[in-house]
């Protein structure tokens, strides 16, 4: 069965399960979904916000998907994103440069920060065969606590204790013409970074020798080694790139969508990235599509919550259920196969 059909079925079942949940808790699901979609798409401002919400999801999804292609499960996108966002914020707050130089420098800092954070698990995997799932989780918490203490120590906010100073407008990804075009939305240059990254990654995976080697390692580590591919190098490199992409998500989130970095919270987009990658079948375009869909759910839920009294967490619940269905899509395949068998058996009997 085709991957996109599988994903669409998973989405369908997820939405159905969400409807059942709304009914069980005494709400009207049709009304709920109506407001959910309206909240995400009703006017240009809301569309812009949906795109902005989707931006970090595109990047974390891409990060997870990229690592997955090399057979690595990057569960640490949250930490890499946090570190990337932190590095970009630190650069933005401490350097006083013209915008044309500052922004690229911030993006670069974000990429390098996330990449280095992911290289540690990559190296441990390549050199010592330490499972990346556990090591990336550890790195998540190390990132969490490091940022927790470094932000108040060096970049303390003016009024609120739990966030950094506000970035000056000069050091943010927001552009006035873009906000005007979307009538005051907080959409920003991050979205273009994300789309550009999708294109680059698609090219890298599908059209380059490096991409071929990384995929080969993902398919069969031993065969690749036998064929002369530097497996250890590929693993470290793959984590480097995946971490860098997650770092870009941090740049988009903390210097574009938000104007400061909060402490005491691991960005949920890191974990949602796993969902995005899975639903998008680890393909760059699939990731883009599913991130936009999740972005719609996330940005519409506030409006839905205001118009009905359905708790906004319904969006998270639906996404989680979609992932479960995507993981168990084999069940649907089996059902279809069984139906086909029965049909052909019936035909034979008729003949």
């Amino acid at each position, binding site marked *: 069965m085709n991957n996109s059909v599988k994903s669409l079925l998973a989405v369908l079942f997820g939405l159905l399960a969400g409807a059942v949940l709304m009914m069980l808790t005494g709400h009207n699901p049709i009304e709920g979904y109506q407001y959910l979609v309206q909240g995400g798409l009703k006017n240009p401002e809301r569309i812009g916000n949906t795109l902005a919400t989707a931006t970090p999801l595109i990047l974390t999804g891409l990060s997870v998907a990229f690592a997955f292609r090399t057979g690595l499960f990057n569960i640490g996108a949250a930490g890499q994103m946090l570190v990337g966002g932190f590095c970009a914020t630190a650069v933005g707050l401490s350097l006083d440069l013209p915008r044309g130089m500052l922004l690229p420098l911030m993006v670069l800092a974000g990429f390098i920060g996330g990449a280095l954070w992911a290289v540690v698990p990559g190296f441990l995997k390549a050199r010592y065969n330490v499972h990346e799932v556990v090591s990336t*989780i*550890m790195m998540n918490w190390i990132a969490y606590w490091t940022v927790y203490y470094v932000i108040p120590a060096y970049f303390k906010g003016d009024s609120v204790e739990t966030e950094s100073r506000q970035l000056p407008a000069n050091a943010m990804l927001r552009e006035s013409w873009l906000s005007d075009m979307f009538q005051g939305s907080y959409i920003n240059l991050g979205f273009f970074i994300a789309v550009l990254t999708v294109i680059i990654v698609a090219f890298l995976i599908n059209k380059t020798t490096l991409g071929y080697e990384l995929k080969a390692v993902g398919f069969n580590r031993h065969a690749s080694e036998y064929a002369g591919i530097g497996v250890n190098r590929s693993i470290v490199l793959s984590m480097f790139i995946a971490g860098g992409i997650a770092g870009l998500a941090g740049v988009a989130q903390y210097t574009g969508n938000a104007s400061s970095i909060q402490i005491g919270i691991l960005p949920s987009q890191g*974990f949602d990235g796993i969902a995005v990658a899975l639903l998008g079948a680890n393909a760059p375009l699939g990731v883009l599509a599913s991130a936009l869909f999740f972005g719609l759910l996330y940005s519409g839920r506030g409006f839905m919550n205001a118009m009905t009294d359905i708790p906004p*967490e319904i969006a998270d619940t639906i996404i989680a*259920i979609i992932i479960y269905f995507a993981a168990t899509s084999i069940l649907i395949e089996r059902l279809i196969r069984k139906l086909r068998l029965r049909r052909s058996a019936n035909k034979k009997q008729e003949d």
Partner: protein
Amino acid sequence: MWTTIEQIFPYAIVFTIPLLITALGALFSERSGVVNIGLDGLMIVGSFIGAFVVSKLQEQYLGSWWVLWVGLLAAAAASALFSLLHAFASINLNANQIISGTAINMIAGALTIFLARNITGSGNIRVTSGFKSFDFPVLSKIPVIGDLFFTRMYPTTLFIIALLLISTFMLYKTPFGLRLRSCGEHPHAAEAAGIRVRRVRYVGVLISGAFSGLGGAAILLTYSGEFNGNVAGLGFLALASLIFGQWKPLGILAATFFFGFASTIANVSQVIPSLAVIPPVLLKIFPYVVTLIALVIFSKSSHAPRAVGEPFDSGKR
């Protein structure tokens, strides 16, 4: 220094217990061959159901001793039920166990808050009172040991230590334990010996679910007192303890106590002069860094169950 340790110890034990029981549950699951990364979600479910049941019962039977135990049992049952989702996906459907576990985490995190908001509006559920700590009679009078282990202890501590002993006995001294371990090492040999691999793995995952639920409820009923939608990542820490403890009950006990002690020290470091000189960030990241180092050290001689994480395909030899 000694008084400091004496003061910290009871807290460290209280903090260790939820980790211990959750990691112990994961031991059953992984020893039977199923990776369970959904521990965090299962703990959240336990914490939610525990808070829900206890707060409802306390409206009527405030002060009755059995209410809290009913809450614990309900939490274990609910989490066991919830872990069926993971068991079904990874045992019957041969799904990727890590993805299925991640889905469990996400569903639990989102669904429980969704339901809690429908109940209380704010998404937090408070219980009126949790377990009371007490000094164990006689034993707390023993010098040194009494002060460290038997003062200000909770009934849950005794309960969970008992479960640890029973689990160890079950795993190593009963036919069931031998079967469970064989399914995680060499499921095909186990099958050839007449063991129903899938069924044993179901039991492993269910025990893991029930124990995680106990862990979540233990957090709620000892030191937190409120369900707020997460368990501060303790489920992941439990998973790390399992690996750190090299898939053995006593190893897990040591690893979880290490985490419990290290976290407690980090939490109280600011009020203890001899610790306040160390930057708190170092104390906070210390357990995680040590885990990474331990993983490197153990990488050569890992005692991971050989078939863990692999779907069982009866036809594949």
